[in-house]
């Protein structure tokens, strides 16, 4: 499903080169539930951005779902993101003036999905995450946990191959964090959806089946729970 080989990512900050990733290689199978851990600045977000096709590596190979995506143009990357990936963000990133339903439908607009099918899929996804009763609510009428559920529904609705979540519980209290992680585990187990998430909390990582540990831009641990 996901295969990274000897990935390097170097950022230029003025005259200084920052080696954010220094030869990272790993594969993730279909249906797996993977947590990436590590201290701040270790390169977790950088690797997630690469997996999420939001960025391209300086060197190395990346194959996603049979497609070599490491050298695609930014527009082709956008196409891949829309078709294969679902994103969950720490800050939810819902459109504030739109209802939960419209938020969940939004990514499908860019795939040319008809209005009727968008709505059926969005409603099914909202039901799946337990938000079926609040489809007309706007983000500011929902709690943080509820907003993150809507965001998960948005990631789910387009039937992605992988759901990517960079610190999905980072802005939530521990009780709500549990609800969200329970939901992700359910989706992984019952739907067979591949989930990759970044966290620095061991309680959160404990929900994953596999934990990758990073430090200083390198992979230093890979263990199964």
């Amino acid at each position: 499903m996901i295969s990274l080989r000897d990935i390097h990512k170097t950022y230029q900050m003025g005259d200084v080169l920052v080696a954010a990733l220094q030869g990272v290689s790993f594969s993730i199978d279909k249906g797996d539930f993977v947590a990436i851990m590590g201290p701040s600045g270790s390169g977790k977000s950088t690797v997630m951005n690469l997996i999420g096709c939001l960025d391209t590596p300086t060197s190395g190979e990346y194959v996603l779902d049979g497609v070599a995506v490491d050298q695609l143009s930014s527009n082709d990357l956008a196409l891949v993101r829309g078709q294969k990936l679902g994103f969950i963000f720490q800050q939810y990133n819902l459109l504030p003036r739109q209802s939960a339903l419209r938020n969940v439908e939004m990514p499908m607009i860019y795939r040319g999905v008809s209005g009727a099918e968008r709505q059926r899929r969005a409603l099914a996804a909202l039901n799946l995450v337990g938000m079926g009763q609040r489809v007309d609510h706007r983000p500011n009428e929902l709690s943080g946990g509820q907003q993150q559920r809507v965001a998960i529904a948005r990631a789910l609705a387009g039937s992605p191959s992988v759901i990517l979540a960079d610190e999905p519980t980072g802005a939530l209290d521990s009780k709500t964090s549990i609800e969200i992680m329970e939901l992700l585990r359910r989706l992984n187990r019952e739907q067979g959806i591949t989930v990759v998430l970044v966290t620095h909390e061991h309680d959160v990582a404990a929900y994953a089946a596999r934990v990758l540990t990073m430090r200083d831009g390198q992979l230093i641990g890979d263990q199964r729970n």
Partner: protein
Amino acid sequence: MTTLDVHAAPEPAPVAADSILFQPITASSSGFGSLWEVVRISFGSLLANKVRSLLTMLGVIIGVASVVSLLALGNGASASITGEIEAIGTNILTISAGSQNRGPGNATAAQNLTMDDAKAIEALQLPVIGVAPQLNSSAQIVAKSADKNAQIIGITPAFQVVNNLTMQQGSFISDEHLQGANTVIVLGATLAKDLFGNGQALGQTVRINNQTLRVVGVLTPQGGSAFGSEDDRAYIPITTAQKRLFNARTPDGNGYRVGSITLSAINASDLDALQSRVSMLLRERHHLKLDGSADDFNVINQAEILGTLNTITSMMTLFLAAVAGISLLVGGIGIMNIMLVSVTERTREIGLRKAVGARSHHILMQFVVEAAVLSMTGGMIGLMLGSIIPIVVTQLGVLDAPIDLQTVGVAIGFSLGVGLFFGIYPAQRAAKLNPIDALRHE
């Protein structure tokens, strides 16, 4: 595996295995189906910021409103001026005595146009309705119980044909009157009324320069023209004017002066040819050398005047519209300004849309459509507001200033152009945003 309480979570709805989420997504790969949705997104965000959208449009509204009203008023004014000239006749050629650049030493040159010149022009048998020499002077007309200063115009019978004059009472100056230099006079309608009251003029006598003249006719009211009312004038045989009233003998004593000679062409298209033929004849008769010495007469071609006036009025209209166009330009800059602010404000939104699959052209489209909708709506409102003054002016009968299709087209076209031109830069900025940076934007 965990110390957390797994039962704290509300139970999500169970999902059936045949859920739509397991079915392959049906999407039109072209992405054109999504363009309409992008347009809807644009409308949505404009409606979400109604006050700001309206303020942004204000510049275009004012610009288009002023372009529309100035174009309509300008076109109306120019049509009205043209109309007045055309009412006088566009087929008229007027030859007057005196050179175009008459200096102080040229006083005699001004006396050079004679009755014989007029006869010579007539002898050319040109395609004209008539050749009408005339000699004008203003004098005091004294009647029994009233007197008035008026233009006294010495004419030949051809004058009536050339100027389309009709009689209210009596008859016009005849050939007999002309031959005999008779002391007869035809009065304009207003003048007749001023001197004698309603319907009392015919057969009465008036005195001008100690000559007694008999009123043989009164003209029907002609109405005003750009050059004063013909109803205030009096007409006498040109021979009477020359010999009895105003002593218009030429300096050499052999003939009589005329003030001007008017030719009325059968076809207006002949005017230029007529002008050069008549000029040639007069130069010959006046013994002007072929070396290019100046004419001692002056030809006014009515069609030429009309053309010049048309050029002037359309230049005026264009100039006014250009000034109004500047405010449209300022309106466009206002749109660009707000669109740039809007792109910055919505950086996170743009980042999110790109992260979840929007391609550059989707974002470009969204913002270009927003700018175009802003300026087009502004243009429509401006068109409506700008039509008010021309419509009111037309209704009041001050000026006929219709809003023609061309004006509407210019207004809509310009506002759309302004929106696209000033919208494209902010939209490109938005489309180029990197989703990672955009999502991190606060």
